[in-house]
């Protein structure tokens, strides 16, 4: 029982990170139609933005977090200008290859800047433990789940209760009509990329204390985020959340109850099964859920 509580908490925490990465991937796909294969590198950059401000520059925690997220926002804007604007109208294959190519650049730029030695990113609740029914769980894991829930709530408010969010959804549904209605489509698209980069940044900052910060961490995260997106339903925000949590739990529970070698096969097997039997995923692509 104690083991199970521990595993469930860790699985949910890992799943939260995957869910945030998947949400970043989904809002970009919904708004711009871009299948962003560099999504994992976004999370990796988020972790390393934290390494730059918290470890290398030694800033105090709140300032360091704010600085890292500001860097990620800038990066989102840069990505919009350098990758999305020239490539956004290309066929899907060209976009896949293009975002992979830029992912290679990002990964190697990070390798040049930070080296191949892994970093340990501190957590605000470093070393604190919680005892629940005999199980010892790190406070960080609980904090990650709570922070993700709050963020998802804020995202819902943004997309459903603010003029900005409603305008973003209008662009996602029909950019041409949105433009005719006088919406500043390009600015809204740029904001979508910034939002995706910041969400990935938060995912990266939360993941840093759970894994070691390593420049090669991007690809495994991207693969899990893809699996989460397919399982939950391509283009659906609730789907990205459910899929992310499922993949995180499958990874942690699978490693301890099934086989640590084949733990990742559960998520990818589920992804392929979903593609074959229910390609629209659990939640399907409902227009009103697009961001």
């Amino acid at each position: 029982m104690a083991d199970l509580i521990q595993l469930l908490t860790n699985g949910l925490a890992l799943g939260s990170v995957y869910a945030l990465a998947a949400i970043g991937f989904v809002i970009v796909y919904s708004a711009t139609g871009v299948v962003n294969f560099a999504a994992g590198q976004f999370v990796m950059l988020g972790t390393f933005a934290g390494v730059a401000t918290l470890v290398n520059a030694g800033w105090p925690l709140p300032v360091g977090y704010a600085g890292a997220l500001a860097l990620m926002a800038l990066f989102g804007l840069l990505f919009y200008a350098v990758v999305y604007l020239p490539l956004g109208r290309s066929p899907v294959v060209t976009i896949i290859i293009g975002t992979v190519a830029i992912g290679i650049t990002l990964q190697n730029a990070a390798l040049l800047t930070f080296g191949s030695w892994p970093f340990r990113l501190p957590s605000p609740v470093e070393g604190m433990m919680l005892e629940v029914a005999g199980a010892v769980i790190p406070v960080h894991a609980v904090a990650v789940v709570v922070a993700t829930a709050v963020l998802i709530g804020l995202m819902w408010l943004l997309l459903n209760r603010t003029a900005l969010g409603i305008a973003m959804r209008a662009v996602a549904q029909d950019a041409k009509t949105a433009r005719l209605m006088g919406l500043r489509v390009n600015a809204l698209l740029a904001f979508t990329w910034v939002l995706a980069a910041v969400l990935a940044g938060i995912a990266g900052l939360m993941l840093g204390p759970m894994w070691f910060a390593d420049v090669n961490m991007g690809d495994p995260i991207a693969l899990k985020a893809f699996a989460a997106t397919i399982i939950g339903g391509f283009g659906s925000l609730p789907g990205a959340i459910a899929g992310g949590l499922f993949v995180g739990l499958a990874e942690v529970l699978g490693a301890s109850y099934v086989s640590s070698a084949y733990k990742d096969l559960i998520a990818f097997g589920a992804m392929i099964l979903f593609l074959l039997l229910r390609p629209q995923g659990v939640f399907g692509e409902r227009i009103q859920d697009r961001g």
Partner: protein
Amino acid sequence: MRSVLVLSALILAGFALSFAVSEYTLRLLNMAVIAAVAVIGLNFAFGYAGLISLGHSAFVGLGAYGLAILTTKADWSPWLAAIPAVAGTGLAAAALGYPLLRLKGHYLALATLGLNVSFSIVASNWIELTGGTNGIAQIPGLTLAGYKLDGEQTFLWFGLAVLALLGLAALAIHASRLGRAMMAVRDDETAAAMTGIDVTGVSVTAFVLSAIYAAIAGCLFAAHVHFVSPDDFNYAHSITFLSMLIVGGEGSVAGAIVGAALLTFLPEWLRVLGEGYLAFFGLMMLAILVFLPTGIAGLLRRWRRPALPPQDTAAGLDGAVSR
């Protein structure tokens, strides 16, 4: 006819180079030839039939592991082992293709990507069969009429001969009823079905052909390097194969060869830039995609528009309009 001439010119250029370059460049040329075989295969699936596959490397791996296991565990000759390795991969592709190819676009891309990742996980963990992450070493090389194909130069000659044969076969298929059916399915599935084309059958055939070429590339790889490990066939290689096809020019056999050669050599040429060369490589790829959306073959077609083969008219006209 023109495509045959271009193919012959490329093969002859490779043959001529084999006398003029260093051992290291010969090794790269061998890698380029093996990649070219795989990319010509991928051209059936993506270039002709429009199926985005990010799992091509898994089929290369199936072929390579098939040969490696049969030669090292069962002591078969590599020639004999290649037959079940290639045929088995083709069968696997047929079995996977029927359910998977109902998917389109990025769904198919992600499904095949998941397949490739699953292949890597199995190859890394089924230790009794695949040797796990240590791989399989000491795979015997090829012997042809009592002559060992173990040097870089001799293997390159053999590789070029295989490439020439498979390239010619691909051109013949391209010009055949089957090839035209694949392109019809790519351009408009409904219209293709209306004219009596069996859309599923044609798609699966394209997928199986692509896997057979991939498996032959895998056998060449195993027999040349004498060693296979899961890392040689991870999904990053699948993306590389697709990049080679896009950079060379999709839908063209010569483009597949040129793309394979270019993307094999480009990272090596960029090494002079020092540690950050892969960062430049990514940026160059992005620039190629933005400025040469139809690849190198597409660029050449635009230069010599009068000599357009009929099936490329649409691409040529697009080029003319955008100029």
